[in-house]
């Protein structure tokens, strides 16, 4: 078993903060969205949820700026570059591996190397999550935090409602992404190996 140093310290720290902040944001976001007159199953009350959601959101935004800046000034961005050539067929072959091939003992089609941290399916979903959904989530969140800067009406519908719908939808999609992300991280050589990698920085080379 050989090890590749794939996750530098700044990425591991960013990733850890991102994950923790996201958990806070999901709990507080749900508390706000589904609060009821009788305080129900959710853990935090509305006022506390608003306060912690705002604090975590500001920290998440700063953390996101760190992520983008880090990707620009280091070579990490190359791992996210989606190749147009065979884009769809690569996605399908990775999907086939996850949905059947791995149970038949097939080799994974895109093993991790020093130059390929992510398989095509990871690249695609990570790109969507980090460069499409996250900016939309942050921008709509800023619009809700400072309602005075949000357009009042858009096609006769409240601009805040549309901003809220966008924010809630992106928050939900990223929460689903997080769930899948955590599960796929159990698909290493052992269920815990990829979690260890994100702490140590070293990736076990024969796994996905």
């Amino acid at each position, binding site marked *: 078993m050989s090890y590749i140093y794939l996750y530098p310290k700044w990425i591991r720290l960013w990733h850890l903060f991102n994950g923790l902040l996201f958990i806070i944001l999901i709990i507080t976001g749900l508390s706000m969205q589904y609060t*009821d007159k009788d305080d129900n199953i959710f853990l935090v009350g*509305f006022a506390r949820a608003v306060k912690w959601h705002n604090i975590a959101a500001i920290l998440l935004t700063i953390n996101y700026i760190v992520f983008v800046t880090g990707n620009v000034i280091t070579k990490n961005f190359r791992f996210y570059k989606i190749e147009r050539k065979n884009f769809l067929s690569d996605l399908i072959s990775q999907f086939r591996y996850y949905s059947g091939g791995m149970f038949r003992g097939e080799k994974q089609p895109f093993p991790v190397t020093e130059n390929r941290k992510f398989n095509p399916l990871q690249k695609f979903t990570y790109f969507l999550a980090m460069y499409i959904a996250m900016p939309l989530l942050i921008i709509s969140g800023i619009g809700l935090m400072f309602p005075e800067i949000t357009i009042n009406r858009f096609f006769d519908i409240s601009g*805040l409602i549309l901003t*809220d719908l966008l924010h809630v939808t992106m928050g939900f999609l990223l929460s689903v992404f997080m769930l899948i992300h955590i599960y796929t991280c159990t698909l290493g050589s052992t269920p815990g190996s990829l979690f260890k990698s994100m702490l140590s920085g070293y990736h076990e080379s024969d796994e996905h």
Partner: protein
Amino acid sequence: MISTGVSGSEPGSSAGTAADSATFKSPFYDDNELCFKCHGQSTYSYTNENLGRQVKAIMFSERIINRERFYGSNHKSFACTDCHSSEYTNFPHAGELRMEQMYTCIDCHGNDEKFAQFHFEEIEKEYQESVHYQYEEQGFSCWKCHDPHSYKINIRNSSNLKETILYDNNICLNCHADYDHFQLLSDKKEINIITRHDWLLNQESHFKSVRCIECHTKVNDSILVAHMVRPVEYAVKGCNECHSQNSLLMSSLYKFQSREQRADGFLNGVILNQSYVIGANRNEYLNLIGLLIFLAVAGVIVTHISFRIIKKRK
């Protein structure tokens, strides 16, 4: 000579009043003009027989009635002397006229089929149970909030909730943010509305988006606007009273619109179109789609885990 300009000090905007007053021609216009020529603006003039010359004087601001607002109000078809003594037609006015008994809403509107839909009797009952009623001896009456010279049905006809909110809140602020008015009725110390509401998150947004009465009255289903202003210790302080699916606002601020919308089958429509309340603006379709996606993902993960376990056993 009579100068023009300067309106009265009544609360709220009078948007639309000019248009209403322009189309309305009062049968008592000329009679009323006898009053308005002095009370319609900030200065008036009269002949002082002792001095033998014209005297120009400042009209006491509380006695100025804005013509446009009056002729745009619900009471626009009245003659001044319908409510005030006909002896006011004499000048100078007799001193004892100041002591005349004023009508209240219920004196004219109570037990009248024509006004049944407004439930004035219920409003009167609520008022008598409100904290304001204890100041009646000091002079509190309907008119402290609703100036009969400019009163216009508001939320019932409103297409712009923000304007209605501003109008209604200015009624409260007229006394509660103006100590000169406040101390006419109460000996309590001056209250700073802003610092008293320091606990309220996004205070500015709340002040622009809801009325004071949303939190400071007890909701009554049978009248449109609650009038039972409660002691401060009973004020709503729990965020989730409004920020929840069965938001309090649906039975207060959005009550009239939501009733109309429900009749059309669009529940929550008014909130969707005019306002934004976190926790109350739930879209049932999105909720269902979200739940289905979540269950589908959870199902796929459980299936995947099962296959992994089967493979491992083999």
